[in-house]
């Protein structure tokens, strides 16, 4: 139990990678607050945390709403204490070829996958600098380092997360705060289950591991970066992709 006494905030924790991260951090003793976009999602999080014997709960947060970020983090501080670990996981896709891409598709991605990372990190940093300890871990994507046809918007936002993390790592390194990214490859979640079968087969051709990754395999990387043992790793992007991309 390496995270005993720590408070972790995980965005987009209802299912998939976020859920696996919430459970994994909780198993290491952290109190976990998971966010969902709906009341039903928040209840789901509370239920699976409770079933696993983890302290914490699900809360409703639309990460694109700046005021909601402020009020939700304040409520967490009042009830549990300030988050020591922030995991920026919430994300969406709006795939399209650039020549067909609508402004809304571009804006939705930047507003959901990039801007909230700025807002949440900024909001949580004050307490972390005071505590002289903190972990900010953002989920980026193999697409952010490799590129992918049909995902200019998603790749731009995910590459943005990497640049953001490197810069913030430089700003707050002396305060015992590490800022890292984890870049999953193709993971078996709702986000990838929608891909056409032919597309999936073609993708797996490029993956030396010849299989999709499991959400738990991403959660393991995040939990490692959150641990005290990873205190000297900062500004790094950990690729967890079955060998699909090697930096």
């Amino acid at each position, binding site marked *: 139990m390496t995270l005993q006494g720590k408070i972790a905030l995980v965005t987009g924790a209802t299912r998939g990678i976020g859920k696996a991260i919430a459970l994994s951090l909780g198993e290491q003793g952290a109190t976990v607050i998971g966010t969902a976009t709906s009341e039903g999602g928040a209840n789901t999080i509370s239920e699976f945390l409770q079933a696993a014997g983890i302290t914490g709960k699900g809360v409703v947060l639309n990460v694109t709403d700046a005021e909601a970020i402020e009020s939700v983090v304040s409520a967490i501080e009042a009830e549990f204490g300030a988050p020591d670990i922030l995991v920026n996981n919430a994300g969406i896709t709006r795939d399209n070829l650039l020549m067909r891409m609508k402004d809304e598709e571009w804006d939705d991605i930047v507003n959901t996958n990039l801007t909230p990372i700025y807002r949440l990190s900024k909001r949580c940093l*004050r307490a972390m*600098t*005071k505590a002289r300890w903190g972990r900010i871990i953002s989920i980026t994507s193999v697409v952010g380092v490799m590129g992918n046809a049909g995902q200019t918007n998603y790749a731009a936002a995910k590459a943005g997360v990497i640049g953001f993390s490197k810069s913030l790592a430089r*700003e*707050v390194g*002396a*305060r015992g705060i590490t800022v890292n990214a984890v870049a999953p490859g193709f993971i078996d979640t709702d986000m990838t289950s929608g891909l056409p079968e032919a597309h999936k087969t073609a993708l797996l051709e490029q993956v030396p591991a010849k299989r999709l990754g499991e959400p738990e395999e991403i959660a393991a990387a995040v939990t490692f970066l959150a641990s005290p043992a990873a205190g000297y790793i900062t500004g790094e992007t950990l690729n967890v992709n079955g060998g699909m991309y090697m930096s």
Partner: protein
Amino acid sequence: MSDIEARVREIVVEQLGVNADEVTADASFIDDLGADSLDTVELVMALEEAFECEIPDEEAEKITTVKEAVAYINSVQS
């Protein structure tokens, strides 16, 4: 020395990890006391908490010494 000045000096000593005798009224946080830009942000945060006030960024930038900090706090508290 006013109570406010004494408290400001205390906070500077604590935040910047310097000796109390180095913290003169005119000592510059950055040039004389070795603060970096993040230290000054944290210092302003600590002043805000201690004196229960909000210091806007454009004012915070002008606070570079104990004297300036005390003057600002006096101006908002009076």
